[in-house]
C-alpha cells in the first residue's frame, strides 16, 4: 500500500507555523506511506499550489491530495486558507483549542475533518485517508467533467442548439419548428450529437447534459 500510494503521487501537505510540530506530523504521515510536503507559511503553500496548477497542462486534472492545516497561523489563518482551496484539496484541521463555532465554520466551509492537538496517529491517518478519498472522488468527477466538456466542445453551434432542445424533452418536429428547419435535418443533427457525446440513448444524453450543466451548458462558441 505504501509504495503504491507513493507511486500514485498522492501528496499530503502539512502547513503549520511551528517547526517542531511540522516535522513531527510530516514524519508521522510519511511513516504511513504518503508523500509529504510541509510548509511553515500559509501563503507560501498557496503560492506553491498555484504554481503547480499553472504549470500543469490546461486540461489535466490534479492528483488526489489533501492538506493538514493548523488553524492558528501568523500570516493567514487555516480557515482563510481553506477558502482558497477547491474540493480536490480537502483540509484536515488541527487546532490547539478549537471551539464549537470554529469547528462548525470549518466543516461548513468543506473541511474534511477537525482534530485537536495533540492528535493520535490513528485519528489523523483516518482523517487523511478520508480526505484523500474525497479528493480522489473530486478529482474523478473533475476528470469526467473535463472529458464531457471536451466532447461538448466538439459539437457545432447548431448541434448544440439541437441537443439543448432534445434534452428538454422536445420531439424532433418541435425542435425543427423552433429552429425553423425540417425534421429530417434535426434527426441527422441529433444522431451526430449522440455520436460525438458518445452516448447510446436519450436518457444517457440527458444525464450527461445534467452533469455538464453545473459549469453551464449555456451555448458558448465552440472555439
Amino acid at each position, binding site marked *: 500500500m505504501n509504495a503504491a500510494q507513493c507511486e500514485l503521487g498522492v501528496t499530503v501537505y502539512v502547513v503549520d507555523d511551528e517547526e517542531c510540530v511540522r516535522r513531527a506530523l510530516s*514524519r*508521522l504521515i510519511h511513516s504511513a506511506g504518503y508523500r509529504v510536503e510541509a510548509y511553515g507559511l500559509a501563503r507560501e503553500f498557496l503560492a506553491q499550489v498555484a504554481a503547480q496548477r499553472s504549470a500543469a497542462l490546461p486540461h489535466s486534472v490534479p492528483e488526489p491530495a489533501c492538506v493538514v492545516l493548523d488553524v*492558528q497561523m501568523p500570516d493567514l489563518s487555516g480557515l482563510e486558507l481553506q477558502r482558497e482551496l477547491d474540493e480536490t484539496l480537502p483540509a484536515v484541521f488541527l487546532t490547539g483549542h478549537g471551539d464549537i463555532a470554529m469547528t462548525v465554520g470549518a466543516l461548513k466551509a468543506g473541511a474534511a475533518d477537525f482534530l485537536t492537538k495533540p*492528535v493520535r496517529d490513528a485519528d489523523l491517518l483516518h482523517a487523511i485517508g478520508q480526505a484523500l478519498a474525497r479528493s480522489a472522488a473530486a478529482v474523478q468527477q473533475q476528470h469526467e467533467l473535463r472529458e464531457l466538456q471536451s466532447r461538448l466542445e466538439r459539437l457545432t453551434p447548431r448541434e448544440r442548439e439541437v441537443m439543448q432542445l432534445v434534452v428538454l424533452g422536445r420531439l424532433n418536429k418541435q425542435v425543427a419548428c423552433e429552429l425553423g428547419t425540417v425534421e429530417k435535418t434535426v434527426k441527422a443533427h441529433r444522431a451526430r450529437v449522440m455520436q460525438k457525446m458518445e452516448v447510446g440513448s436519450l436518457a444517457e444524453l440527458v444525464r450527461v447534459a445534467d452533469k455538464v450543466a453545473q459549469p453551464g451548458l449555456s451555448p458558448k462558441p465552440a472555439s
Partner: protein
Amino acid sequence: MNIALLAVPAAVAACFVRLLSPPRRAMHDGLPPRFDASTRRPALHQSTRRLLWRAKSAARALESASPAGPAQPPAASGSSSPSNASHTSHACAPAVTWHASRAVRWKEWLARVLPASHAQQRTHAYLDSFSLLECAPVAAFVLDAQGQVMCANAHAERLFHGQQGQLSGLGIDMLVPHLWSAVQRDAQSLQVEPAAPVDMFRTPPSAPAAAPALTRETRAKRRDGSDFPAQVVLHPIAWQGASAMLGFVCDRTESYELKRDRQELAHLTRVSTLGELAGSLAHELNQPLTAILSNVQAAQRFIEHDPPDLAEVRDILNDIVDDSCRASEVIRRIRAFVKKEELELVRLDIGGVLRDVVQLVHSDAIVRGVHLSLDVDEHLPPVRGDKVQLQQVMLNLIVNAFDAVRDVDPLDRVVTAFAGRDRDGMIRVAVRDRGHGMSADRLERIFKPFVTSKAQGLGLGLSISRSIVEMHRGRLWAEKNSDQGMTFHVTLPPWNEPATARATE
C-alpha cells in the same frame, strides 16, 4: 514617608520645644495614661531644668534657622517657663515618624544646645540627661560594656511590652537576638576606643560629629515572646565615666507591611495577567506535546518497517528531547513569573527580559492576529533590577498594546517592542501600537489605580508597573504617536551608574 524623614532635625527641635511647654489639655495626645510624666517620673533636678530652658531657647533659634523650616508650629511654646518644664513630656507628638539613623544626630543637637559652662552642674546632668530621652518618640536605651541594658526610656518599655523598669539589667540579646554578637564582631570597624569615647551630651560643638554607628535591620523580640521587624542603631558613648552604647530601636512593622502589601499586589496583578493569557499559554505548551506524541507514534511505525528505519528513529528521539525541553521551558517561564519571592535586585540583560516576555505572549499574538515584532539593541549595558518585576512591566505593556489594536483593521494590528540606549545613557524599552490611541488628558490618568478601559480589567496594571519602574529608579510614561496609536516608554539607569547600586525599597 521619605519626605517626612527629611524634616526630622526640625521635628526634634520642635519636640524639645514642646517638651518644655505646659500641658494644654489632659486628653491632648491620646497617649496611654501611664505615659503621664508627673506619675512616671520624678521632677527634674533644678539644674537640669535650667539646662532644658537653655535647650529650648537654642532649639528655637535652630528651628528658625533650619533649612527645612519649622516642622511643627511650636504652638504652646510661648507660654512656657522653666518652672513648669517638669510636667510636660506627654505633650510630645508620638506621630513623628522617626528614622533611627537620624536619631544619632540628636546627640549632636543636644551637644550644641547644651552649654559647655556650668561645670559644677555636669555631674547632675549626667544622671538626668537620659531622662531627656524619656519623651523621645523612639525607643532608646543605654547598654553597658557587657551588653546589658542600664536604662531604657518609656517608649522602649512600651515597644517591648515591658513593665516600668523591667528592661534594666536585661542582656540586649534578649530584646534584639544576636545583636550583641554582631556588635562584638564589628567592634573593630566601630572603632570603640574606651579611652576617648564620644561623651553623650557633652561633645563640644567643635568636636568631630560622632564615632560611626552600628545599624542593623533585624527582628526584635518583645517581652511576651512575639517579634517584630526593627531597625537598631547603636552608638558608642561615654556613660558615667565608662564606655557604653546608646541604642535606638525603631519599629519597622509598618514599612515592612507596606512593602509586603506592595509585593502582594504586584504578585496578584501578575497572576491575573497570566490568567488572561492562560489560553494561549496552554497552546504554547500544547505545541511541543503535539510534536512529542506524533514523533513517538511515527517512531513506532518506523520500527515496524522492514527493515526498521533506525536513522529516522534516532532523529526522532533527538527531536523528542528538544520538544520536551521546550515544554519544560514554557512551564519554567510560567512558574518563574507567578512565583512569590522576595525582591531580588540583580544584574539583568534587559533585552533578554524582553525576549522572554515576547516568548510568553507569542501564542497570544497569533491567536489575536497581532503581528508582534522585536527590535533589541544587542550591545545594551545591563541594568540592576528584579527580573520578575521587570518582566511584569513589559508583559503588562505588551498585553495592553494587544488590547489597543483589537478593534483596528487587521493590517494595523502591529505591536513593536524596542530595547535600546538613549543618548543620555539610560536604557529604554518602548512598546508601540497602532491602535486608536487616546486623548492627551487620559495619557497621565491611565497610570492612576483603578482607571481602566477594559471590561474585566482591574485598572492596576499600569499603576503597579509605574511603581515598579520607579522603584528601579526609572520612568514609565505614555506618548501619542505622531501617526497612529501610542507608545509606552520605560527608561532605566544602566548598571554601572553608582546611583543604581543604592537599591531603593
